[in-house]
């Protein structure tokens, strides 16, 4: 799993690429939680290049979301691949996550 980080006017944007599964969970969780900790808790997760995710990968997104909320921040999801969208809808977590298809709109929401 490859993570690419940038910051746009105080909002962290992390693009994930590859498979987000049990084997990747410790590393990805650590890096995303560190991003939340070091930033202001406003985070966009771009999942366009995530080809597959299981429930352990999804639990990483949930734990990062919780960490951001505890810091009075927020996490939004951007560009869900069909596979990831299917898992999120299966687990009904679209009721928790705010999802965007446009980065400008995601940034405007968090600012």
């Amino acid at each position, binding site marked *: 799993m490859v993570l690419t980080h940038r910051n746009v006017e105080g909002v962290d944007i992390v693009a994930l690429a590859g498979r987000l599964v049990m084997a990747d969970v410790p590393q990805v969780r650590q890096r995303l939680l560190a991003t939340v900790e070091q930033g202001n808790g406003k985070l966009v997760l771009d999942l366009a290049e995530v080809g597959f995710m299981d*429930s352990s990968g999804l639990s990483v997104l949930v734990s990062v979301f919780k960490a951001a909320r505890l810091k009075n921040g927020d996490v939004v999801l951007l560009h869900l691949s069909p596979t990831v969208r299917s898992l999120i809808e299966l687990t009904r977590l679209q009721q928790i996550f705010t999802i965007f298809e446009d980065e400008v709109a995601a940034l405007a929401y968090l600012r």
Partner: protein
Amino acid sequence: MAITRTIMLSIESRPECIELLSHALHGLCPLLTLSATEMNKIELAMVEAVNNVVEHAYSFEPIHHIWVEFELMPERFELRVSDRGQPMPSGRLAEAQGLMAPDPADFDTWTPRTRGLEIIKACMDTVDYVVLDGINTLSMSRALNGDGMGGRV
């Protein structure tokens, strides 16, 4: 003539090895009459089942083996995941009764990690679990749309 074909794979009980099974499953895609969405559900069910073995049956001990059998039948695709670890508690499969909507006000209801069996049930048509002679086997099946022979007869 319709025939049944089976392939069995064995991996070590390490999370890094589970991806190998996904590649093997995708290698069977040309033989199945399922959409990409349906294949994704089968892959998700398989990965969740093997995750459960790694985490619960073997407690992340990497020295064990997990066997995964793919059985392609004319009208059905069956997956069997077997291990020699700690069996699933009696009744756990029956208790997995669908994925509840998370409560936005309750963090504890958001975590999907503990809902692997529910996800498996949502992805597959049938799910069964047996323990026989120290071997635990979770069997999952999904109906195929066509003849399941990938154009072969």
